[in-house]
């Protein structure tokens, strides 16, 4: 028994070596996948994890035998949080490395920067981060949340469960918070919230001194009505913001803060004990208890060789996006972008929270929405979730400019079809 087992192990090892050398021999014939995430500069904080996620996914896929009988090969470049460099690197990935698809970008501006390149060179970008919507491009697949998959359910929850009547919309001054707040403002007003009960505040990137703003929030919140903060504060600025919140003693029971850009990764840098009860809205939390998620976390931590490595929503978006791409490629038996683009809508892939997400005709996907409360261990406790999955809207129904627009790349082959005029091409 033991002998046979040893023999088996040996044979396996031999086979593995053979496969390995075969892999080397056929190195020319790999399918290249571009990874376009900043590894240095301001965005490295968020994006390096996504680079690792892609390496992990590709390794896993190769363990399963690759794709179409070929190995996948990740091509990693560093666009260094520099937007023009994103475009340059995208061009390099597509033209020079001939990648089959690219997974990348975090900020909207980086996506905007590479868009023309993807259109011109006709390749595929999977974009994994929640964003402001108002876009649908043939070459881009949006696996992060659109505003209707994150912001609006969160506000609904606060209004219903916490009876919030007064709202602070605090954000970093860029397009995602601006748009989200615009949508939320319109939405809240449609629910009868008065002008004086909404406070909108914008801060620069990397804002570090939150004393005044937190004091203002406190002031705004002490007018007697139940108040909540909807935070679209981006990246680094969250840590000093939450530290200030904690120190000024704003408890979640007084003024809850719901954030759309704060996940497990961001919380890893903060002592969360003073923040227990503050909220985040995402389509995925690490703490969600499903077999798929448990397995994923275990493998991820093994891959990172760090038992404390956390997972987060954009990672899950890459998981879904990658699996969808794999399925689409397998379906059309080709990595030709045109074929894959056409095959992707309708493709389904299980997400990590127990459902099955589907790529829609507007190149967004269906996702469940969860509201989580921050726990003292830096994780989230899901306090609410949507029934079933919410389809992502490319164009917000709350905004004047886009309420008549729909994106449909299957029937109408158009990203901004105007239902009123019946024409493709905007308002």
């Amino acid at each position, binding site marked *: 028994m033991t002998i046979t087992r040893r023999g088996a192990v040996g044979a396996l090892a031999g086979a593995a070596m053979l496969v390995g050398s075969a892999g080397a021999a056929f190195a020319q014939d790999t399918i290249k996948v571009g990874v376009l995430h900043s*590894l*240095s500069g301001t965005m490295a904080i968020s994006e390096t994890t996504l680079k690792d996620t892609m390496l992990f996914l590709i390794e896993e896929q190769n363990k399963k035998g690759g794709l179409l009988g070929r190995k996948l090969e990740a091509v*990693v*470049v*560093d*666009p*260094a949080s*520099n*937007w*023009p*460099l994103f*475009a*340059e*690197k995208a*061009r*390099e990935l*597509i*033209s*020079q490395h001939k990648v089959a698809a690219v997974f990348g970008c975090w*900020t*909207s*501006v980086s996506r*905007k*920067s590479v*868009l*023309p*390149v993807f259109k*011109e060179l006709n390749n595929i970008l999977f974009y994994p981060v929640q964003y402001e919507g*108002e*876009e649908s491009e043939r070459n881009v697949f949006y696996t992060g949340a659109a505003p209707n998959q994150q912001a609006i359910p969160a506000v609904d929850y606060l209004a219903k469960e916490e009876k919030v009547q007064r709202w602070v919309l605090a954000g970093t*001054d*860029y*397009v995602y918070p*601006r*748009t989200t707040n*615009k949508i939320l403002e319109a939405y809240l007003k449609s629910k009868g919230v008065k002008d004086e009960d909404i406070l909108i505040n*914008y801060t*620069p*990137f990397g804002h570090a001194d939150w004393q005044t703003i937190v004091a203002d929030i406190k002031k705004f919140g002490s007018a007697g009505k139940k108040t909540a903060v909807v935070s679209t504060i981006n990246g680094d600025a969250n840590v000093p913001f939450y530290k200030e919140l904690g120190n000024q003693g704003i408890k979640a029971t007084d003024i809850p803060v719901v954030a759309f850009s704060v996940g497990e990764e961001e919380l890893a840098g903060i002592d969360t004990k003073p923040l227990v009860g503050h909220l985040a809205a995402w389509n995925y939390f690490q703490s969600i208890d499903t077999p798929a998620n448990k397995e994923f976390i275990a493998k991820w931590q093994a891959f990172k060789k760090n038992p404390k490595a956390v997972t987060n929503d954009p990672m899950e978006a890459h998981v879904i996006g990658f699996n969808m791409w794999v399925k689409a490629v397998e379906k059309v038996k080709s990595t030709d972008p045109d074929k894959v683009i056409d095959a992707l809508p309708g493709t389904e892939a299980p997400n990590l929270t127990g459902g099955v997400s589907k790529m829609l005709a507007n190149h967004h996907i269906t996702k469940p929405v969860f509201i989580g409360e921050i726990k003292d261990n830096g994780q989230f406790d899901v306090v609410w979730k949507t029934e079933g999955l919410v389809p992502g809207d490319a164009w917000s129904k709350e*905004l*004047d*400019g*886009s309420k008549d*627009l729909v994106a449909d790349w299957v029937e109408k082959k158009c*990203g*901004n079809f*105007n239902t009123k005029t019946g024409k493709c*091409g*905007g*308002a």
Partner: protein
Amino acid sequence: MISARLLGRTGTIFLAIVLAVAVLVPMSNLLLPVGSPLHVPDYMMPLLGKYLCYALLALSVDLVWGYAGILSLGHGAFFALGGYAMGMYLMRQIGTRGVYANPVLPDFMVFLNWKELPWYWWGFDHFPFAALMVLAAPGLLAFVFGWFAFRSRVTGVYLSIITQAMTFALLLAFFRNDMGFGGNNGLTDFKDILGFPVQAQGTRAALFALSALALAGGFLLCRFIVTSKLGKVLVAIRDAESRTRFIGYRVENYKLFVWTVSAMLAGLAGALYVPQVGIINPSEFAPANSIETVIWVAVGGRGTLAGAALGGVVVNAGKTWFTGMLPELWLFALGALFVLVTLFLPKGILGTFTEWWTGRRRPAVAEIEDEDGVARAIDSRGAPVPAE
């Protein structure tokens, strides 16, 4: 009139290379077959064009730093303003092809509910006006800023730091979505320039050739300035500012002149840069960008013009190469490059090369300059002016 004296030997070689590049690279890209070893691949064109724009920017920095001793840590602001002027023109050319198909308003204004075009966007649909603004906007900013700063005799590191404050203030201002310049996303998704699609290979080739010509022209202009008597006055100002005043030169006017010219060159570089990289956004105003520009000049050789341009190309080409080849380690390589150049090539690549070339014949008598000459340009200790 281009005389040998105007160009110098290095200058002649430099100009010849730039002009050759202006012709040969687009030709090789458009005419040679893809398989040919001499073929310049499509993706290289905008990349090389970008380097040329950076070279022009470096040239403009060298004009003020190398010759007038004004260390600008805010030249990125002029570059970005030129870029924005061009970007605004390109945005207006999109017309109804934007996602909201608004014939007048750019997309970002539509979705932020702007109802009409703000006044400062007027006229940018006309190329001549935009072209004028490419030079006028940075020129005007430089003129106003310089008029204040030079008249008040802000010098040395004080000047450097307020130029940095200037570009930082502009960075924050352009980030603001209320400013009407597209906030953080900036201006992007350009379609046409003068009726030609920006993404077409022919347009790219033309833009590349234009960038090379602009670099050549900028180089000639700079050479004309620095070889003129005015150029000699600038060097005099750099080395002994108060002496120059006592001879009767109104130093602030000279500085203001060269400062404004330099800003306009930087603006031109920015304007050519934008259609080639396809985006202009506030991060171009980041002080780090301006500092890096200074570093290109230092790497290439301060006060050599051609060297500065060379530095702009070399450092950026290195960056492209490193970020692709060593994505996780490239900052080590770049950082080490800067340290090593400083330590072992204190006069930059070109400066060291020419010194080595001429040094074989004429022994260097540069002892004095070592301690006083270079250091004087930026009087970092704020050494007090002797009053008695």
